[in-house]
């Protein structure tokens, strides 16, 4: 005798395979979403870095004129508004930078340009700095990330792929729930007919099955979330340990919050798809 909660349909004692399927799809979705978030962070960091950093080069072939141009540029930059730091790369730094490409030659033998790293303030306008330096002959200015365009494009593509995988996994979850609803309707056909004959409405019947499926989806999504969080944390830890550049910064508290909310969205999606499917099927009853 169950006097607690109303029990129109018998509650299954074992949830079956659905939670495991949902756990797998939600794990996939969360890992893909986490990858998208991390790549998004990397893209933002890359963009911020390149937007606020300039590389100034004194390229005159004559060493003396090159040196003069570099000194003039440094002087102008130090007085320019919005410039946070000006750093001329010394010979050791240049050697470390290009050494592997010149096969042991002494850099003093080469007419290498003098390189100056310039960091700008957040609101500073790189165009103004360029205009300032244009007065000095043989000075060239390039965004520090000029060569990073292909990397930025790759990151954007990977982010789109990760988002696509996350969307596919979410769609697969909805589809699994929908097929489960149809199977439940077929399996419980005799009981549905009895309840229908006793005056149960379509909404009542649909809600009964929807609640059971949503519960299974919730169990699966929670399992997927826990495993995904452990995996992401582990990967993040490893990335930090090796100092994996752009990927080492993770995606912050908002990212974690978004990931935690995704399974809720999954449950709502699955429950909604299930409910609508059931209502459509039940409308075929007399």
């Amino acid at each position, binding site marked *: 005798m169950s006097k607690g909660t*109303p029990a129109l349909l018998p509650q299954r004692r074992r949830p079956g395979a659905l939670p495991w399927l949902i756990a797998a799809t939600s794990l996939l979705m969360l890992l893909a979403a986490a990858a998208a978030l991390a790549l998004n962070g990397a893209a933002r960091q890359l963009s911020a870095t390149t937007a606020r950093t300039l590389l100034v080069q004194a390229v005159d072939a004559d060493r003396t004129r090159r040196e003069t141009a570099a000194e003039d540029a440094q002087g102008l930059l130090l007085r320019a508004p919005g410039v946070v730091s000006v750093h001329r790369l010394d010979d050791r730094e240049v050697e470390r930078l290009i050494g592997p490409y010149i096969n042991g030659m002494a850099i003093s033998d080469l007419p290498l340009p003098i390189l100056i790293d310039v960091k700008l303030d957040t609101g500073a306008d790189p165009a103004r700095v360029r205009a300032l330096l244009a007065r000095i002959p043989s000075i060239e200015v390039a965004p520090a990330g000029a060569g990073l365009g292909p990397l930025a494009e790759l990151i954007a593509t990977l982010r789109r792929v990760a988002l696509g995988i996350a969307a596919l996994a979410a769609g697969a979850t909805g589809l699994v729930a929908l097929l489960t609803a149809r199977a439940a309707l077929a399996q419980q056909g005799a009981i549905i007919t009895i309840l229908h004959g006793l*005056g*149960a409405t379509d909404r009542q019947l649909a809600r009964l099955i929807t609640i059971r499926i949503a519960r299974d989806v919730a169990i699966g999504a929670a399992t997927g979330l826990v495993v995904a969080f452990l995996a992401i944390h582990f990967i993040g830890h490893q990335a930090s340990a090796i100092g994996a550049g752009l990927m080492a910064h993770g995606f912050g508290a908002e990212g974690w919050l978004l990931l935690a909310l995704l399974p809720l969205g999954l449950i709502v999606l699955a429950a909604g798809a299930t409910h609508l499917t059931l209502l459509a099927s039940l409308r075929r009853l007399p």
Partner: protein
Amino acid sequence: MVQFENVGLRYGTGGEILSNLSFSLERGSFNFLTGPSGAGKTSLINLITLACRPSRGIIRLFDEDLADLPRARLPDLRRRIGVVYQDFRLVPQLSAFDNIALPLRIAGMANEEIGARVTELLDWVGLTSRANAYPETLSGGEQQRVAIARAVITRPELIVADEPTGNVDPDMARRLLRLLEGLHRGGATILVATHDIHLLGRIDHSALMRLTRGTLDFPGSTLHHMPGVAVRG
């Protein structure tokens, strides 16, 4: 209470299972529906209990024309009908108590009130000690009493029983008829489908409809009198 006018029923593209049925069941009447196996008794009951729609003709139930009634209102009408199915149709995974409580739960009644009503009904059908038993552990007679209790727990205006004595011994059949008679005295309209001719004379002032091959045997007449039985077609 129930009115049929030239009602026909066919399943799919097959021939008519029921043809040109015209009759009415008066409010508070006790009616028998009889006929040989395959005559269409269960199909007629399915029409009356809104388990299917007619292929043609007009059915009025509780003064509502079913042809004009939106589908969303059918559950309300079904809740005003108590049905005892030939095969009982108990939910196997629910106890006797929960099976009897089903119509009340569907109607959204509070659990406390459900408990009191179900306990009262279990006592009425003599199954208090079997409240927690599941259908598979109940005898045929006990299952039938659970089905009857479930059919009457909402105090429906119309009670329909399909071959209610088909699976029970004569003693249980007499007890069942007394139960239905008691409900009839309480104001319910009763329709009992049976091929058991011995039942027919047991209720005074009852009416009889006889189906043969999907049509009523007494076309055009409104009432036929037999000893102790009023017959209508």
